[in-house]
């Protein structure tokens, strides 16, 4: 009979005590696994796995503020950038880099984003962008999956999975936007949903994407001409007299309705537009580029070095700044989240240690009652090493058995909690994703079992057979 089988049967003899001690280990490991899964989810949510861009170009100000706004849709951009940053400055700065003959040598793609408005129903953040946003990776190695079509027409929209679920929207549904300012004005324009994104576990799930052209066509979303001209100059762009005239010419006769005083945060120039005669219907006429603004430009460079060089070049000039969102979030993680995770892991580790002490106490206390059993085994020919191994085996079974149970319970807990977390927080949790740390748990448990089983094992080893049999 195998020594582990003997150890198991001995444990079974003390079923209640053994089960409780194994359960204490299981609960400890369950907590450790839960913390590891939470850590993994937080890592996934806040690190490179949820950011598919190399650089985030946005207004000067807080790196973190830009990243939170653009990537996590928390807060609004402090100000906007002229459209020329996307069309002229970004390629121009790329061209300045050594060895770059064409912007595409260094830039894989650059996608504009406009932000500020929210949906009337559910107040989900609205992002104006191009259909290309849905064709590129939203996270490293991850592409969007969708139902329906891309928002190729100006008043088309694509919605995230959580928006669809919470608002009960689907392809064909229509919705209105609330202007981003304090007045809470509801825009008259209606957008039609052409596609619904599959859950991604990112902020995209809780975002409404509209075609950027449609975003500009909303009354008050284009820049007033004088403001636009001044802003271009502030950003260091050359605006010739002909261009100024063209800007004024393009806006004259625009049929804007009175959407003044919107106080649109994050859309500088939305306030006090005074535009009249804007066509609220879907008979769109193009908005001149110089009247357009972007909140952020998402840039994917072909190489990491290219990203660093381009960021440096952008940050040297104009009033925009480029940051690597991964670096910003990593800093934040290290500062706050990382330490919290370490603290949680430490505390749950302590629970496992306490459970280990429980095993020690349980086995050690049983030794005085089991001296005779051990003596019988010895009298039957079991060596000292054999009885030592049996006791150590018991400790191992309790630790590893409890640990395995805890692992299953931990993931079971996550399986149960995952739909709840997704519905409440919009965070997609994969209950079957294993953290590499979990592999370390078992060697640790085996080490702990050896430690806590050693002294009781030594007691068994030292048992005097004749004395114990005569007692």
């Amino acid at each position: 009979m195998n020594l582990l089988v003997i150890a198991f049967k001995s444990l079974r003899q003390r079923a209640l005590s053994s089960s409780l001690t194994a359960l204490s280990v299981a609960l400890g490991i369950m907590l450790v696994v839960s913390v590891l899964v939470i850590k993994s989810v937080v890592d996934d949510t806040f690190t490179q796995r949820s950011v598919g861009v190399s650089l985030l170009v946005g207004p000067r100000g807080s790196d973190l503020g830009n990243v939170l706004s653009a990537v996590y849709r928390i807060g609004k951009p402090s100000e906007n950038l002229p459209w020329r940053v996307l069309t002229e400055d970004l390629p121009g700065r790329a061209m300045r880099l050594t060895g770059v003959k064409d912007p595409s040598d260094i830039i894989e793609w650059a996608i504009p984003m406009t932000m500020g408005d929210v949906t009337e129903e559910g107040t989900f953040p609205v992002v104006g962008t191009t259909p290309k946003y849905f064709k590129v990776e939203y996270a490293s190695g991850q592409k969007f999956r969708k139902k329906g079509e891309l928002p190729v027409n100006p008043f088309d929209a694509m919605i995230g999975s959580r928006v669809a679920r919470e608002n009960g929207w689907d392809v064909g549904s229509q919705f209105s936007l609330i202007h981003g300012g304090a007045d809470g004005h509801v825009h008259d324009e209606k957008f039609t949903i052409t596609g619904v994104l599959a859950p991604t576990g990112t902020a995209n799930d809780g975002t409404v994407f509209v075609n950027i052209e449609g975003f500009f066509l909303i009354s008050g979303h284009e820049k007033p001409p004088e403001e636009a001209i001044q802003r271009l100059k502030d950003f260091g762009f050359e605006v010739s007299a002909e261009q100024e005239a063209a800007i004024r010419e393009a806006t004259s006769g625009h049929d804007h309705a009175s959407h003044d005083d919107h106080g649109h945060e994050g859309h500088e120039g939305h306030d006090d537009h005074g535009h009249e005669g804007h066509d609220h219907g879907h008979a769109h006429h193009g908005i001149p580029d110089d009247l357009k603004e972007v909140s952020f430009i998402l840039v994917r460079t072909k190489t990491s070095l290219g990203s660093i060089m381009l960021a440096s070049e952008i940050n040297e000039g104009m009033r925009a700044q480029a940051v690597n969102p991964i670096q910003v979030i990593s800093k934040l993680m290290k500062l706050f989240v990382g330490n919290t995770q370490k603290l949680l892991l430490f505390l749950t580790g302590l629970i496992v240690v306490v459970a280990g002490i429980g095993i020690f106490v349980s086995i050690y206390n049983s030794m005085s009652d089991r001296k005779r059993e051990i003596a019988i085994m010895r009298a039957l020919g079991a060596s000292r090493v054999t009885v030592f191994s049996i006791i150590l085996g018991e400790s191992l079974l309790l630790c590893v058995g409890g640990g395995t149970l805890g692992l299953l319970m931990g993931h079971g807990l996550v399986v149960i909690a995952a739909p709840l977390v997704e519905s409440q927080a919009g965070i997609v949790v994969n209950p079957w994703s294993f953290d590499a740390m979990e592999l370390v748990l078992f060697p640790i448990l085996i080490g702990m079992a050896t430690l806590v089983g050693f002294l009781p094992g030594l007691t068994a080893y030292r048992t005097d057979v004749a004395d114990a049999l005569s007692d």
Partner: protein
Amino acid sequence: MSLSIRNLKKSYIEPGGRRLPILNVDSFDIADAEQVVLIGSSGGGKTTLLNVIAGVTTADSGQVVIDGTDVTKLPEAGRDRFRALRIGYVFQTFNLLPAFTALENVLLGMSFGGCKADRPHARELLKRVGLEHRLNHRPTKLSVGEQQRVAVARALANRPSLLLADEPTANVDTSNQDNILKLIREACTENGVSLMLVTHSTDVASQFDRIEKLSDFNRPEASE
């Protein structure tokens, strides 16, 4: 199997540090397949003698030669292995392990000898002692007589050449006493196993051809 004891001395140290001689046996022999009953007063050293023969306790000096092997010269691990393979031990209080079924208790005897657990042989032994219907019962579910029969089957599991039985009938009623005694003796006869049985009972002793009184060949006072 033959057992030959020469100049065997064993003493214990009392709490006060004084040496208390227990055994002082000049010569004692058991022939192959011989069955011997050992009687003596309580505290006279009967169990100690069995323990020394089995290698459970070490002797102070002397020889205990079983089939040409001097057990006293073996290291502890060697004695353990020798005991597991060559000696069967039946205790007064049966000493079955409560965590294991009747069958498993018998298999345990094989496991510690480093042999492959011979399940058919274990079943056969339990059948031989009339417990084929109680194989999977734990000791607590067995009667006293059944427990002792399991203990006999376990002692014979490794096909030992010497069976040591320390008052195996002391805790059983008269009818079980006869059955168990008969069982032990028959099993030893069938398997050619030498038997050394310790008892207080004159009824039990009277059934043996060779009756040895410990005090006749053990003179501990002479070793001082």
